[in-house]
């Protein structure tokens, strides 16, 4: 009798274990992307500040802003709208670059937030929130300064 009880307990434990493992695996596999706009911003700074941080010490800046798993820091960046364009995914791309800076911050919007980018005016000051994908640097082969890149952007109201 005691033995049967023990076997029953073990079976229940194993089954529960499998359900939890399976559930976790299923959840992990289907885990949705982080919602950048609904997440808390990690840093708030001007486009000049982040560009200068990268041009001064790119390694230190990457260490500070990039994450191993690609879910890097969420930034709110203030700057002057220099250019508005569109990428191959029909997303609006707003370039924030202050006068005299060697590089700017390129902010890709999403199909959901595009309309907020359309209302922006060249030369106006704005704050944009997004996730950083890469930093600014001078590239010898391109022979130009690459911008800081933010994606999943929206205007901070």
């Amino acid at each position, binding site marked *: 009798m005691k033995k049967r009880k023990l076997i029953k307990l073990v079976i229940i434990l194993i089954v529960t274990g499998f359900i939890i493992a399976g559930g976790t695996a299923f959840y*992990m*596999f*289907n*885990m*949705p*992307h*982080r919602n950048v706009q609904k997440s808390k911003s990690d840093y708030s700074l001007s486009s000049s500040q982040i560009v200068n941080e990268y041009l001064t010490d790119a390694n230190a800046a*990457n*260490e500070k802003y*990039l*994450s*191993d*798993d*690609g*879910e*890097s820091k969420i930034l709110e960046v203030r700057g002057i709208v220099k250019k508005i*364009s*569109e*990428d*191959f*995914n029909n*997303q609006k*791309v707003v370039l924030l670059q202050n006068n005299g800076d*060697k590089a700017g911050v*390129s902010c*890709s919007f999403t199909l959901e937030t595009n309309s907020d980018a359309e209302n922006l005016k060249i030369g106006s000051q704005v704050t944009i929130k997004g996730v*950083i*994908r*890469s*930093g600014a640097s001078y*590239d010898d*082969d*391109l*022979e*130009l*300064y*690459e911008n800081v*890149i933010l*994606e999943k952007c929206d205007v901070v109201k």
Partner: protein
Amino acid sequence: MKTTKTLLSILAVIFTISLYGQTSGKLVSSKSHVKFFSHTSFEDIEANNYTSVGTINTETGDMVFSVPMQGFEFEKSLMQKHFNGNKFLDTKKFPKAKFKGKITNLDQIDFNKDGSYDATVEGDLTIKGETNSINEKGTVVVKGNQIEVQSKFNVTLADYKITFVEGKPSTNIAKTVEISVIADFTKE
């Protein structure tokens, strides 16, 4: 004398670029699409990146692309994390991939005449700090003041020391993946 001359011309080039973003014959594109596609019997995996910057020099055929690796977006969040992680592309340590090369049949391409031209490109591809020379085919489409460059080629992950020895990624990610590139350039 020669060094001074070279130095001066380099300075002049940098100066012009910082002023206008391009020199004569050199076009800059920030409108691009780089796609990663992996096929195995288990699943097809695709990731898209719209954040690359490229330059093409219509006079020399020089071509450069810089690809921010964290800009690759996957349908599944977990795949994206694996891709970025230090077992796969280690994008924190190697945030950018780069192609630096040349169009080798420049004489067969007329950047001033509308049309679709076959191009051969050779150069160095650097991913995760590993550089390999590649020689691929592509297409250059000229339409008015627009130039569109396209190419599709295969990359063997092991050539870039990207290997999975165990777990799901080792069976579900192809050993050779297909990369497609498209970039638009506008003539001034």
